[in-house]
């Protein structure tokens, strides 16, 4: 039989190998927030001739009209994405026709978003509130669902720790990818994150449920063994469910088009992390808690192997 609980500190370490670089990236580079949160405008246009002017020329034109600090990305198939302060539609139309005359080209507006700065701030604070609310709701529900088990609160808390693990993984990886691929945190990223939270807890509960069942069957068996047994019993299911979800998500990532690729990749990372944490973190945390192992964490025990 697999021994997972025995090697729990190895698995905790593996998690930290992913989380720590992510957190460092978060501190050093931060997250680049999309206009959903910061306010501003995004204009996605296609130059019909297929040739875009140099970004600096577009920036110069924007500056002339009082839109300083705009950012322009161009692709070699005639697409240009211009980020700037928030503006109304008539200003946007004026700027587009100005670009058309100056660069002698026809433009097709593929997408134009504009968000006022105040609403962006409100979205940010409510988003934080939504995550906190989701966590609280789940904690309360698990404590209720496991009310017959001793230390029901521990199950809820362990599920929340595993959930925070997944949030840390997703946000950390986003900070790294955001820096190198230019991905921005938008409302969809937040949606993906909240979905990951739901999935993570969904997965954790299945293992916990088995622990709950086994605790009442094998009353004399040490808790540590019950936990390991429960993890192994649910291992096939955990892996298969993850496989099916990852199959559908991969199909979306590969064939679903560029618009939602970022969203789907975020979900993929989160779902993988969610399954990992429910197998290797959430349930072993229950064992750590049961044994109160933190008392030994900082004590020197040179020759003593951990049982």
């Amino acid at each position, binding site marked *: 039989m697999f021994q997972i609980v025995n090697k729990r500190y190895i698995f905790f370490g593996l998690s930290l190998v992913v989380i720590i670089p992510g957190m460092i990236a978060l501190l050093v580079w931060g997250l680049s927030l999309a206009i959903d949160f910061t306010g501003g405008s995004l204009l996605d246009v296609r130059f019909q001739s297929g040739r875009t002017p140099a970004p600096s020329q577009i920036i110069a034109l924007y500056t002339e009209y009082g839109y300083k600090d705009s950012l322009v990305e161009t692709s070699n198939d005639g697409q240009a994405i211009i980020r700037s302060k928030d503006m109304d*539609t008539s200003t946007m139309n004026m700027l587009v026709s100005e670009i058309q005359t100056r660069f002698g080209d026809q433009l097709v507006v593929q997408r134009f978003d504009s968000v006022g700065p105040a*609403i962006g701030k409100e979205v940010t604070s409510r*988003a934080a509130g*939504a995550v906190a609310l989701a966590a609280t709701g789940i904690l309360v529900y698990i404590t209720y669902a496991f009310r017959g088990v001793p230390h029901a609160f521990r199950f809820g808390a362990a599920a929340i720790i595993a959930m925070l693990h997944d949030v840390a993984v997703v946000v950390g990886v986003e900070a790294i990818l955001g820096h190198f691929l230019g991905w921005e945190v938008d409302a969809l990223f937040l949606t993906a994150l909240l979905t990951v939270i739901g999935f993570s807890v969904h997965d954790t509960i299945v293992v916990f449920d088995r622990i709950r069942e086994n605790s009442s069957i094998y009353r004399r068996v040490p808790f540590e063994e019950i936990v390991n047994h429960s993890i192994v019993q649910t291992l096939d299911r955990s892996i298969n469910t993850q496989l*099916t979800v990852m199959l*559908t998500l991969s199909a979306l990532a590969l*064939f679903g088009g560029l618009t*939602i690729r970022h*969203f789907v990749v975020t979900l993929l990372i989160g779902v993988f992390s969610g399954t990992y944490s429910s197998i290797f973190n959430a349930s072993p945390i229950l064992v750590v808690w049961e044994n109160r192992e933190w008392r030994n964490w900082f004590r020197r025990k040179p020759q003593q192997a951990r049982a």
Partner: protein
Amino acid sequence: MKNKTNQLLPLIAILILLAIWIDFPNGPGLHLNIGSLKIDRSFDTHLGLDLVGGVQALLEADLPASAVIDPGAMNSARAIVESRVNGLGVSEASVQQAGDRRILVELPGEKDAQTALETIKKTGLLEFVDLTQLATDEALALENQTIQTDFGISASSAEPLSVTPSTELVSPTAAPGTSQTLTPTLPAKPAQIFHTVMTGADLKNIQVTTSQTGEYQVAFELSGDGAKIFSDFTTQHVGKILAIVLDKRIISAPRINTPITDGRGVITGNFTMQSANDLAIQLRYGSLPVPLKVATTQTVGPTLGQDSLRKSLVAGLIGLGAVGLFMGLYYRLPGIIADLALIVYSLFTLAFFKLIPVTLTLPGIAGFVLSIGMAVDANILIFERLKEELRAGRNLRPAIDLGWSRAWPSIRDSNLSTLITCFILFWFGSIFGASIVKGFSLTLALGVIISMFTAIVVTRNFLHLVLDNIKLNERPQWFGL
């Protein structure tokens, strides 16, 4: 031996036929006419802005954040915006209130964002403004001019500003009682701020009538508070001018001939039928009780959306096929039955999308595709349990029953936690008019609920149906053992 769960099979069959009826593309819909019962519905797939292209705008109350907005006023503002949007002739346009100070306008297929937004905003705030401090001819000269009013600037929310003496319109001492404040955005040019007596929110029943002498006039009624304010004001200022101001522009400057104390009045003048009608329409639909500004806009070109739609549908089919293949290979007979249940699941879900109706957005499709993966989770839980019971040496039928009953608590608890998250996402999306977030959470939640039904009820009935007809006890390999 017949199993009692099989009694549900006819019901499942009926539901499947119903779902196919609804799902059928360009289907006939439902048009019934039985006595007083009249059902006239066609079932269409509603596609969101990101798929068909179009314009989305989030309108926000243009008042200080500290101002408390009356929910009724906001609701009638939404109704007015809706009537204007309907005037645009965009099919499937939607106007929804988002939170307590915002209105979300979605115009699928609309290409000209600027014109659409101008139409929505064109007629705006209607105010009755006190011009009594001006001489009559001065007041009349202001007709069709833009003026400043103090509406929306309350003493608590606006910073007191130094008053620039207004030399052109009135002497500074003329109106010591009125609030003379300047809005911060105003140019340096001195301007008079006039007092708003009441807004169009109090107006009702506006009609064009004719007087006894045959002249056209606009009759109106005022609701409770408005009638009182109007009564007091007109009693004190007979013979003076009370301007009707739409979006800070004076559209009419009638003289108060008699006090209007009963909440019913008429506006007379040299009206033609056309001009009387125009004024009535402006009074009726221009009376936005809350000033609105555009907080966010989104415009999606049609080509981008169609491309995304085609790609995500292909992706969905590939995902469904991959999951089906995996289930069949790994779980054998039950897996194939779960695949059938998955097809039933897809039929049901699409039927619900059309029935409710759910507007499909790109994230919504992602939510649906994701829910396919999660839908089989319940079956995986059950089948793993079933295998365990079979390995423990139980017979097939009891093993199936035990597999279902033991897997149930896990399925229930895990799906409920997903539903909690969906609910919070939906709430979050509603406040900001983030219809993409709403679309995703709604499709995911629907998927979770429907999948619980198909995975638990449909799969089990199908499995029993197969077992009733084929002897499988001797063939454990059919169960992946």
